[in-house]
């Protein structure tokens, strides 16, 4: 199945889908900050790629190498840098596919060179499907 959306960061990647219909706030929120030096604790551990926030629907799952499929993003500006840290640590998602981009994740994808496509009907993708992202196109295999 082939779907055409809008390229937020052009690129090419293939991976196993990890889907969260209610996948907001995965980059964390500065309002819950307790750590003094970072001022921010994300839902995802930037060293391992594991989602560490207990309330999160994907708690315990690893985003590394996956095509992350979600509705929209949420979180503070620092969230862009969390995506960058994941990339530098070799545990970033292979690609991002969502319904509607917001600035935090979009900027994070660009500065981290992670392909990102939005305006996609994510209801047609399920966790475990192999998904290929290329430019503005998403192919579900």
């Amino acid at each position, binding site marked *: 199945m082939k779907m055409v959306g*809008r390229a*937020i*960061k052009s690129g090419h990647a293939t991976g196993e889908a990890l889907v969260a219909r209610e996948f907001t706030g995965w980059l964390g929120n500065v*309002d819950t*900050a307790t750590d*003094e*030096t*970072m*001022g*921010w604790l994300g839902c995802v551990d*930037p060293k391992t790629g594991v989602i560490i926030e207990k309330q999160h629907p994907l708690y315990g799952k690893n985003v590394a190498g996956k095509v992350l499929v979600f509705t929209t993003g949420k979180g503070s*500006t*620092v969230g*862009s*840098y*969390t995506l*960058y*840290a994941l990339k*530098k640590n070799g545990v970033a998602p292979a690609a991002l596919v969502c319904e509607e*981009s*917001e*600035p*935090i994740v*979009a*900027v994070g994808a*660009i*500065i981290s060179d992670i392909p990102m496509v939005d305006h996609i009907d994510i209801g047609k993708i399920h966790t475990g499907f192999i998904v290929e992202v290329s430019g503005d196109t998403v192919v579900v295999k």
Partner: protein
Amino acid sequence: MDLTAEEQEMLSGEKGPAVQKAMEIVVALAKIYGAKRLVPVKSVNVSGVSYKNLGDAGIGFLNEWAGLGAKVSVPTTLNPAGMDLVDWKKQGVPKDFAEKQEKVIDAFARMGIPKTCTCTPYLIGNLPKKGDHIAWGESSAVCYANSVIGARTNREGGPSALAAAICGRTGEFGYHLDKNRMANVVVEVGCPMEKDSDFGALGQIIGKQLKNDVPYFKGIKAASNYQLKALGASLAAWGGVALFHVDGITPEAKEKNMVAEGAQTIAVESLKEAYDAMNTGSDIIDFVSIGCPHASVSEIRAVADRVRGKKLKATLWVTTARATKEKAPDAVRAIEDAGGLVLADTCVVVSPIRSMGYKHLATNSGKMAYYSPNYCGVTVRFGTMEQCLQAAVSGRWPA
């Protein structure tokens, strides 16, 4: 979206990888917000400067971009850092934090940004004109630039402001467009606005009811730019307000009707609920913050006049821009003789004060009252500058 030939070249990498990355960010945001084209910006203020906000990943990113040859193409200033870049030892900032903060500032300097950190860039020469398109981060400065100056900016994040500075452009959406500058809420102020802190209190009451709405205040008879600075900072912190108008006072409201058809009305008859909400702290005060947003020369002089010849019991930080501090050496000496500190480049919220052991803060800023309990782990008292400085002298909030 229509891009000019030059913008296409920037996006395709013909002007180098640093410009290309900047253009990718600007174009992606323009797409997300439905802009039809880009507009040139006259100046930029970059937020996300404190190591406390950036972390090591942020430093890595800034160095990578600088390494690609990123240079700003328009006048650019920086938001406050986590410390006074000169007097950080006096401020009590730990050495490891200071080393990381210096790396951040050095990365920005490699991109051609002066080592000046302030949330009031408009007080130190980054002063746009009415109608200018700019790309600023820092919610209080955005609110001031849009409302008091009449320049045009959205609330930019750190990387997006920096991207705009590098490619000299931003997407034409949001507050860059006439239609989005009309007020959708009219605020009828029925109570007198007598004390300086009343403006921060009004910002609290209205801010917490609004998100990214545009309020139009009626019933404020007079307001100085410093009072409007306090109002905007509080509105932006307690709500997501980036633009407000004051009837007969702010530039766009003076020129033409700025109230949209069908705007709702909110009446404010008393500021008591705001003072109550921001006075949940203890009567004991160990830390007093003045200068949020950064103090002007006249505000520094006003502090000096109230503490001259006294000995302070609580820690007093007056935060300001370095250029402002240098204009008031006598006042700075009087404050320091009393035991206070006048710190440049920094801000209480983004400095590591939690680890310095402070518990009970007093402030004359609605913005500081919003952020400090969560970010700094302190209790809060909010009032006039006079009350705050009495607390600095006695160590107790005045009855």
